[in-house]
C-alpha cells in the first residue's frame, strides 16, 4: 500500500518562476485496485508520479510504502525502485537491448536474480503485457508501435513490483492496442494484488478500467473516490478542464428524460444492459 501524507513540491523556489506543482496532497492507493490519476495539463500529475518512487523528493510531507517512509533511509532507495515500478510516457523510447527478451530481463537481472528466476519473470511479464513468445528473440526496434509499448511495460512488470505506476500507458495507440495494454495491466493488478496507478487524459479509458479515481487541479487533490463517486460530479470535472465519458453524458441526458438507469453508467455495456433490461432482450 502506498500512502501520501501532505506532500508538497515547488519548482524554481525563490525565483520569479516559483511554482507550487504539488500542494498538500494526502492520498492512499489501495492494494489490488487500479487508481486513475487525472487532471488538466500542468495539474501536477507527473510531478506527483515522480515522487512515488523517489525520483524527486517532496519539499515536505511523507510517502509511506507498506507503512515505511521511503525517505527514512535514502540509501535504500534502490530497493524502493524495485518495489514501485514506474512506466514513463512513451516508454518504448527506453528500449535499448538487442532482443526483447534481454530488454525485459534487464530489471530482474539488476535485482540479482538467478537465470531460472529471470526466465520465469520474463515469461510471466510477457504474458501479462501481451508480448507474444515469438517476439522475444526479435530486436525491439523491429516491433510495431503497440508491440514496443507492451515490451516496455513487460520490462517493468518483470520486476514484479508491488506498486505499478504508469504515465499515459495507452497514449498514441489505436483503440485495439489501447484495450490490449489496459487489459494486461488489469490482469497484473488482479493476479498479483498490486497497487496500480494509471495517469491518463482519457475519461473513457478511466471509466472502463479503474476502480478508484483521484483528481488533481492546480497541484491540489480536488476529488477522490470510487469511479462512480467521481464521475457523478460531472460539472466539477468540466470546471477543472476534464469531463466525463460521452456514454455518461448520454446516460444523464436519458435520466433528464425520466429514464431510470441503475448501476454502471460509465461504460457502453453498462448503459446498454440497463436499457435492454427494460426493453426485454431479443437474446434475453
Amino acid at each position, binding site marked *: 500500500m502506498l500512502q501520501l501524507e501532505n506532500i508538497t513540491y515547488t519548482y524554481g523556489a525563490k525565483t520569479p*518562476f516559483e511554482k507550487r506543482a504539488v500542494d498538500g496532497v494526502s492520498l492512499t492507493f489501495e492494494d489490488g485496485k487500479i487508481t486513475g490519476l487525472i*487532471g*488538466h*495539463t*500542468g495539474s501536477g500529475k507527473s510531478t506527483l508520479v515522480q515522487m512515488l518512487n523517489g525520483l524527486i523528493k517532496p519539499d515536505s510531507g511523507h510517502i509511506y510504502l507498506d507503512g515505511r517512509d521511503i525517505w527514512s533511509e535514502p540509501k535504500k532507495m534502490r530497493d524502493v525502485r524495485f518495489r514501485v515500478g514506474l512506466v514513463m510516457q512513451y516508454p518504448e523510447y527506453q528500449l535499448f537491448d538487442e532482443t526483447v527478451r534481454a530488454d525485459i530481463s534487464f530489471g530482474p537481472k539488476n535485482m540479482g536474480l538467478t537465470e531460472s528466476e529471470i526466465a520465469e519473470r520474463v515469461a510471466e511479464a510477457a504474458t501479462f503485457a501481451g508480448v507474444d513468445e515469438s517476439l522475444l528473440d526479435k530486436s525491439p*526496434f*523491429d516491433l*510495431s*508501435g*503497440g508491440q514496443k509499448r507492451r515490451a516496455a511495460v513487460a520490462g517493468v512488470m518483470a520486476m514484479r513490483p508491488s506498486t505499478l505506476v504508469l504515465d499515459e500507458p495507452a*497514449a*498514441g*495507440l*489505436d*483503440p*485495439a*492496442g*489501447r484495450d490490449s495494454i489496459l487489459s494486461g495491466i488489469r490482469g497484473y493488478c488482479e493476479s498479483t494484488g498490486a497497487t496500480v496507478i494509471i495517469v491518463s*487524459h482519457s*475519461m*473513457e479509458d478511466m471509466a472502463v478500467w479503474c476502480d478508484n479515481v483521484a483528481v488533481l487541479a492546480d497541484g491540489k487533490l480536488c476529488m477522490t473516490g470510487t469511479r462512480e463517486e467521481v464521475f457523478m460530479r460531472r460539472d466539477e470535472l468540466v470546471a477543472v*478542464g*476534464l*469531463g466525463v*465519458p*460521452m*456514454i455518461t*453524458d*448520454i446516460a*444523464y*441526458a*436519458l435520466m*433528464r*428524460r*425520466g*429514464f*431510470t*438507469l441503475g448501476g454502471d453508467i460509465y461504460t*457502453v*455495456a453498462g*448503459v*446498454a444492459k*440497463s*436499457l*435492454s433490461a*427494460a*426493453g*426485454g*432482450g*431479443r*437474446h*434475453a
Partner: protein
Amino acid sequence: MIENNENSVDIKTPFIEVRDLAFAYEDADGRRHEALRGVSLSIPKGQFVAVLGHNGSGKSTFAKLLNMILLPDKGEIYVDGELVSSPVEPDEDTIFAVRRRIGMVHQNPDNQIVASVVEEDVAFGPENLGVAPDEIRRRVDASLDAVGMREYALATTSHLSGGQKQRVAVAGVIAMLPECIIFDESTSMLDPSGRRDVMKTIQYLNRERGITIIHITHDMSEAALADRVVVLSDGELYLDGTPDEIFSRPDKLRAVALDVPQSVSLLHELAKSVEGFRVPDCIKDAEECAEYISMEFDRLGISAR
C-alpha cells in the same frame, strides 16, 4: 460509400489529388516495409477530412508525403492541379511552395515551437518567407486572434499549457497563409479541455476561413466532426465516406483495430438486444442520442422510466 481503391472522381477541381501513391521504408537490415501501397484519393478545396487507421496503417507516411517531407516511390501528388511530387526529385522551389500552401501541425507542440515568446514564434514562418515587417505584425495578430491566443502574445511559450502551446503552433502555421493544414495526431497529448479548444480552432479555420483540413486522429468522436472520414489499413485505402456512413459499420472498423464513438456503439448494442430498435442513419451527440433512444422506446412502447 466506396471501399478499397475505387475512388470516385470529384466534380470540383480537387485541391489535393494523389494517384497510386506508394512508399516503403527500409530497416537496418535492408528489409523493405511497405507503408503505403497504392493509395488514390482526391480532396476538394475546403473539405474537412479525418484520417483514421491502426498503428502502422500508413497515416503518418501519407501526411509526410503530402507535405513533401518524404517523396513517393511510386505515384503522383497534384496540388491545385499541378504535379508537385512523383518519384522524380522535385526542385526546391516546388517543395517550399507546397509546404507554404500545405502547413502541418505535429503531435507534440514542443517539437514545433522555436521561440521563447509567443508572438516571436508565430512570426518565425512569415519572417523566413521574407514577408515585410508591418505585414508580419498584421499576420501575427490575426493568427493569434484566430486561435484565441491574442492575450498571450507576449507570454513565454514554455509556461503555456499543452493545449495553449498547440494553438500557438497552429497560429504559426496560419501566419504563412496556408490553404490546407494537416494535423498529425495533434490532439493526442492534450487534456480534455485542450482537445476541445484545438478542435474548436480546427472547425473555425475550416468553416470561417475555408482552410482545407486533414486531421489524423485515433479519437472517433473527433472524426465524427469531419465532412469526410478516410480509413487506411495496412497501407491501403480501406473505407472512404461521410462519418455517418463510416460509423454505421462498427464491425468493419473493429476488424482493423478501430472503433466507433460511444453514442454509435450504444445504438448498435440496443439494436442487438431490444426487439425492433432501429439504428438511425446519422451520428448523434450525447443529447441527440438520448432524445433518439427516448423516441424509439416510446415508439416501441417500452417503459424504462
